């Protein structure tokens, strides 16, 4: 399935900040479900505004939005990571992705990820990676379907 033509995917702009912050809020509030270590700060509402503004300023971050008319209905935030010892030294890591419920199952997430892959090529990154809570089976299914494979495992332990 493909997104309706009315939905466009582009780099986020300052005018998207409010919509972006709302979606970031939802992303973190949702992820809290999967593991206690994802518990959010109390002032999450405030914190996401700062987080959104920072992400737009940060040169090593890529923020994409899916927009329907003037409203932001989905977003993706990715960060560039470097390891000079590896032949494929640059990886673009998708850290956050969220699509509003009423626009799901229409291929919006796939559009966002494909756009991120385009951006990765421009930045000469050899790999695109994605991080999500290991208990999030819905995310797992989505990325496997798009062609991602398990790559890195992160275990945690309370310090």
């Amino acid at each position, binding site marked *: 399935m493909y997104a309706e033509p009315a939905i466009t995917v582009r780099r986020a702009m300052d005018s998207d900040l409010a919509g972006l912050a709302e979606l970031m809020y*939802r992303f973190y509030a*949702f992820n809290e479900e999967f593991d206690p270590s994802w518990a959010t700060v109390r002032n999450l509402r405030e914190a996401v505004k700062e987080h959104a503004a920072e992400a737009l300023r940060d040169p090593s971050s890529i923020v994409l939005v899916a927009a329907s008319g003037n409203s932001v209905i989905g977003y993706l935030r990715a960060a560039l990571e470097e390891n000079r010892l590896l032949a494929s030294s640059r990886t673009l890591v998708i850290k956050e992705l969220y699509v509003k*419920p*009423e626009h799901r199952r229409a291929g919006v997430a796939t559009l966002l990820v494909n756009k991120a892959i385009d951006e990765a090529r421009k930045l000469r990154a050899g790999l695109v990676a994605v991080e999500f809570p290991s208990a999030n089976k*819905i995310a797992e299914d989505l990325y496997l379907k798009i062609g991602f494979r398990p790559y890195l495992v992160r275990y945690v332990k309370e310090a």
Partner: protein
Amino acid sequence: MSEEEAATEEWYKLSMDLHRFYGGKIEVIPKVPVRRLKDFAIWYTPGVAEPSRAISRDPELSFELTSRWNTIAIVSDGTRVLGLGRVGPEAAYPVMEGKALLFKYLGGVDAVPLVHRASDPNKFIELLQLVEPSFGGVNLEDIEKPKCFYILDEARRRLSIPVWHDDQQGTATVTLAGLMNALKVVGKRLNEVRIVIFGAGASNVAFYRLLKVMGVNLHNVVAITTKGVLHPEMKDIDKLMVSDPYQYQIAIETNGGDLPPNSPIERAFEGADVLVAASAPGPGIIKPEWVSRMSKDAIVFALANPVPEIWPWEAKKAGARVVATGRSDFPNQVNNSLAFPAIFRGVLDVRAKTITDTMAVAAAMELAKYAEENGGINENRILPTMEEWEVYPRVAAAIAVRAVEEGVARRTTTYKEELERAREIIGTVRQKFQSIWSSGLIPKPPVDYEG
């Protein structure tokens, strides 16, 4: 204690005494001649080796050479029994046995209680797969939600015999039949009405699925749970996607009935033509002022047991024209016993591999048609009652033919042929039972009710 509660207490006591007296409710009785010892050379060794060899070559022959074709399992893990909750498999047994009695008496179906400890959904499904060779069908019963949806979906996918969850599909089928006739009574059409679904448990989630099959415009449907209106913009919608994907799907597909986000419950009733409540025992769950916000000639189904979400007279006073409940002492009882015996009669007779949602709709249509053709329909009669036993062969015939049309039957039949066959099977069971009873072989109950 109210008069009603006192009466219920009486039933509890009588039931307890008689369950002890009879030591359960069903038994296995041969249906072949046993005249002398030699007969066992046919039914058992050495003769039985031949049917056994034949079935080994072609397992499908088990539907012809054994009782499998007419035998189903009534399966429960005892996690949501009646209104009692998680009482355990042993405690579910008397309920399953009662259901087996109804299956035999109303549908001529041999049903075996199968209560078990596999409450983990994947183990539950595995158990069904493991015992599949014993049965021609599976009736799931009294399983908690949301795992009951997953178990039904998966079991339907993996088994080659019909799997039916009566708490979901049975109630939904009879509800749909009742709604079809109620709409005829008030002169409205299903694809034009606005429908409020109150409670999104087993039966209402299944009812919603049948509405989809009927091609209802889903934006005219609004579902309400304890969390309020199911809406894509509701708080915690993402959590719902994980905790109850079925309710989540309703929220997205209906778009909250196109209401604005965070609309209060009473707003959902505004201009609604139909209310189908299957939520928590009332009274006082559905407020009369909500019903009075509905449009003219409103239809109210208040299906909670033992007490409906709103008393019928309250609903009528608030403007409802047709009211249905789950109770036999009020008009318009939505009773799944009207459906499940006939549905299994029909699918077993054509050795169906499954029961699709469209087959359930065909059963609902026939049930509605029967009520209309036999005695007519009006505000106080939208469904037949269990006493009209002719309804069972009719529904059996309708669903059997539909199974053949959909290509899920192992055998072909016509409506007329199945009608005759079902009449014969169910009629014979009634005769046999009458004959055993009048011969005095079943002892008379030592205590009894009046009337």
